[in-house]
């Protein structure tokens, strides 16, 4: 379930800013208007158009929010986005007349997507990525509309109402936010890769750019947000913080910039394609929120579209910040001599607790060299989450495991077991510290307190018992009923 923990503070700031800007509101007027576009009221949809709309709905990952996890009815909304000031529920976007968007005209639908304005004139919370969808073409809006009106079965049950407490229930205030942070349709071509490229390559890059910035709304997670929760850059013209990586739910969200050492610098275009199509490649296995994005969205994209996305991302240079502190390219090669960690683990003498725990729990798959196995067991050496400033993702993965999505090209739900049931806070901290400071890794140590916090936040959950041998239950019972002896 997505949790945006930074929101309360930021929305409070937003509310304060809005209150102080009453005069500005007066100047702006108080009634939202739909911007003009070539959207027509003609609703004659053909199967081809509906099919294209279905594909675009995948590309835009509408399902991620508008379908409740595990629900059989698609797009019926109800998926809760938790926050301490209340729960935001994604809406029902099936064509049911009252519960859903059945009464939306095409221009209403376009306004919701691009401007965040509902048919009744009220504003959507910007959890809906309309700042990105603003760049969707008229043709694509038309196809999406056709799909949601005629390709999706109506669900008449309404999704739960979102009712936040004051001042967050003042949806009108979002208009001011929009005025500050949302561009009008920004479908301009970028300039930085227009010359010296063949027409085909140029077309590929443009398509990639369109998908990444628009439907894909990659920036929603991968671009750092500003004081008012706005994305600091909505496109590649908007600054080099676009897709420069950030943090979500305390998990590091990696940079997608092709020039960034912390981003995709060491990834080939094929690596990016593999990752988006299958959630795994030779560098990484997906985890956290991205699992669902791959499952429901990117694994359904055509090879051509994935190629264009990969091609486009490679054109994004390093950020200035990155350039200033750039580390030399780290290309782990199997031909180099074993590093100190590999030698230490292989000889298995004078091991500290972390190294011993690594051999007992991790080595079977990730190996003494920390390189795992291509596309099956992800490498730990150089791994983004292992080296993240915030170790939450690593701790969480050690304790609760991970599971890859089943995708058309790679159907296997490869699963890492959780070790919650057999590692104490101290042990998990030693292990995490070992992994963060071995091979090519160089990150801070992890404390037992940090592990305890992750355990606390997770609570007692079902995955905690993964991998635990059943015989232990009997062993414990036997031990409990037998007097201790020496």
């Amino acid at each position: 379930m997505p949790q945006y923990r930074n929101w309360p503070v930021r929305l409070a700031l937003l509310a304060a800013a809005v209150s102080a800007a009453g005069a500005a509101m007066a100047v702006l007027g108080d009634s939202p208007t739909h911007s003009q576009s070539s959207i027509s009221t003609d609703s004659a949809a053909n199967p081809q158009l509906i099919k294209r709309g279905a594909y675009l709905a995948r590309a835009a990952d509408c399902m991620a929010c508008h379908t409740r996890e595990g629900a059989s009815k698609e797009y019926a909304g109800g998926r809760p986005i938790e926050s301490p000031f209340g729960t935001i529920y994604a809406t029902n976007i099936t064509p049911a007349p009252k519960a859903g968007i059945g009464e939306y005209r095409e221009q209403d639908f376009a306004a919701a997507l691009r401007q965040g304005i509902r048919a009744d004139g009220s504003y959507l919370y910007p959890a809906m990525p309309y700042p990105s969808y603003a760049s969707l073409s008229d043709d694509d809006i038309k196809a999406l509309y056709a799909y949601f009106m005629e390709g999706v079965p109506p669900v008449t049950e309404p999704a739960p109402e979102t009712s936040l407490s004051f001042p967050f229930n003042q949806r009108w205030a979002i208009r001011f936010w929009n005025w500050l942070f949302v561009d009008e349709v920004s479908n301009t071509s970028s300039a930085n890769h227009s010359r010296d490229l063949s027409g085909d390559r140029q077309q590929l890059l443009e398509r990639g750019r369109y998908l990444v910035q628009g439907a894909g709304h990659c920036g929603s997670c991968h671009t750092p947000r500003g004081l008012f929760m706005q994305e600091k850059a909505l496109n590649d013209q908007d600054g080099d913080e676009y897709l420069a990586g950030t943090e979500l739910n305390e998990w590091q969200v990696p940079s997608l910039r092709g020039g960034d050492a912390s981003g995709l610098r060491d990834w080939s275009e094929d690596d990016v394609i593999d990752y988006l199509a299958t959630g795994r490649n030779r560098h990484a296995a997906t985890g956290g929120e991205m699992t669902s994005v791959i499952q429901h969205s990117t694994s359904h994209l055509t090879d051509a579209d994935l190629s264009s996305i990969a091609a486009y991302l490679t054109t994004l240079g390093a950020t200035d910040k990155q350039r200033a502190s750039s580390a030399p390219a780290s290309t782990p090669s199997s031909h180099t001599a074993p590093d100190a960690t590999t030698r230490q683990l292989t000889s298995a003498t004078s091991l500290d607790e972390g190294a011993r725990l690594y051999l007992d729990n991790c080595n079977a798959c990730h190996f003494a060299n920390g390189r795992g196995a291509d596309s099956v067991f992800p490498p730990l050496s150089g791994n983004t989450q292992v080296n993240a400033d915030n170790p939450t993702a690593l701790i969480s993965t050690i304790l609760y495991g991970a599971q890859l999505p089943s995708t058309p090209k790679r159907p296997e739900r490869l699963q890492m077991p959780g070790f919650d049931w057999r590692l104490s806070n101290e042990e998990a901290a030693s292990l995490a510290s070992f992994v963060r400071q071995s091979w090519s890794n160089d990150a801070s140590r992890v404390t037992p307190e940090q592990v305890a916090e992750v355990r606390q936040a997770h609570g007692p959950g079902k995955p905690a018992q993964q991998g635990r041998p059943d015989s232990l239950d009997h062993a414990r019972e036997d031990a409990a009923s037998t007097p201790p002896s020496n």
Partner: protein
Amino acid sequence: MSITQPDVDVVIIGLGWTGSIMGLEMTSAGLNVLALERGADRSKEDFLYPKPADELKYGVRLKMMQRPRQSTVTIRRNRQEQAIPQRHWTTFHPGDGVGGAGSHWTGVLYRATPNELALKSFADRTFSPGFLPEDMTIQDYGVSYEELEPHYDFFEKVAGLSGQAGNIQGEMIEGGNPFEGPRKNPFPLPPLPRTLTDTLFTKATQALGWHPYPYPSANVSGAWTNPYGMQLGPCNFCGFCSNYGCLNYSKASPQTCTLDALKQRENFAYRTGCEVTRIVKHEEDGTVKGVIYRDADGNEVFQPAGMVILASFPLSNVRLLLLSEIGKPYDPVSNTGVVGRNFSYQITGSMDLYFKDHQFNPFISAGGSGQVIDDFSPDTFDTEQHGFIGGSYIYTTQGPGGAIGALRTPPGTPQWGSEWKKQVRQHYGHHMMIGTTGTNMSYRDVYLDLDPTYKDPHGDPLLRMTYDWKENDLRMTEFMAERMREIVAQLQPDYHTESVKQRGDHFDPSSYQSTHITGGAIMGTDPKTSVLNRYLQHWDAHNLFVMGASAFPQNMQHNPTGTVAALTYWSAQHIRERYLDNPGPLMSPS
């Protein structure tokens, strides 16, 4: 019948290797497929590290296996004895649940040789007339090696087979098995890393002029993505293979090679806890119209289907055919009927060598790790001169080194106490085993039928096995013991012990032999001597296909899984290319 389910195109009985392969093939053909599995669902959750590494639960208590109280077999050695039920699995281990035997198998993946598939023809042209014993009933499979080769090749890619080819399109490759049939392609992956036992065995057998090669292993040596996009990770030699689910995605199994791909298909569904008790015939034309099963709640359910694919363990296949009264039961007295005929098994032997100065680390092991010679196969030397038809491969494998099963003590050691502990300490890790896995011919009085006395909880008779060793096969295994002694002499251990059969021995079901149970519903080209035609299609019911080693007319030395899978793809190909457009018998009797 209280419940009738909606019709499906294909119902598959049993969701192991052959069931899941047929599921993939039939859904690819656009059919609606339902698989019914008697046991529980088994996903990777059940095999997460370190859960399977539990020798007591899986190695001793055999929790991956069919529960004898649910269904077992009765065993006798001849028609004069009273058959007794197996109340604990000893001599073989029938699997249970999704994945079936494909989840708990060892992972040794072989092909049959061209002559093994046409053994009767080979014997007729090789031996003097009258050499074969009169009661021996061996037959050809009716399908040739050349016909199966593409299907072997494909399944080896599905399983990520690791090893060294010996014969690629007629070109002999050093270090591979020179006696194998020609392969179109090399192995998908190189052999597993070599252990000390492999090295010693190689040296000894080369000195004897023989041709050692690495065990062909479906415990894979590297990362592998198969044609379905399913993935295997490199084996780490944890040693929990035979009787266990793999904890490392390293052993080819339905869980790692087929099931997640199959589950993605919208025209596929499966139900667990559903035990099929009858295949139901149409009264008019003898074809089948579906199955009756008991669901998890004990309800009796009729599942109508256009085609039935019987894909359970060989013993269950034969029993269900007998219970459903499809095909004529075999009668050894009148030598008529076919269902239950040509049941065969496997004859094995082993020697245990102790070396004070070698440390073998048996806890580093994999089921498919080892070194083998095929120099004494049925067609590689003059067996007639030694008085038998058949052969064995001779192999070594390191470990497994489990705390319960791997403890070896010298003869004369007490079974418990401080002396036992001392001997265990001294001997652990100093043993090397060599073994034989041999052919088993089929005979007129070795067969399966329904037991007249013992019944399962539904009141249906258990399957009865009438089985004993025969002189031909015992001569063969005596010959192999001599070859093993030659290897022992080369290796010069401090001492060795032997566990080999000899003439005069009788079948003893109280100790483990092998789970390579074959025959009883065999394939062939003559409905008078086979249940299935050469496409695994039932002679009497053209919309019933029966998968698995129950189709083998006699057992070969090589492990059955490769041939079981290749036959499944072969059958599927003919169903897809010929049967679906024109349902009816795929061949007429020859």
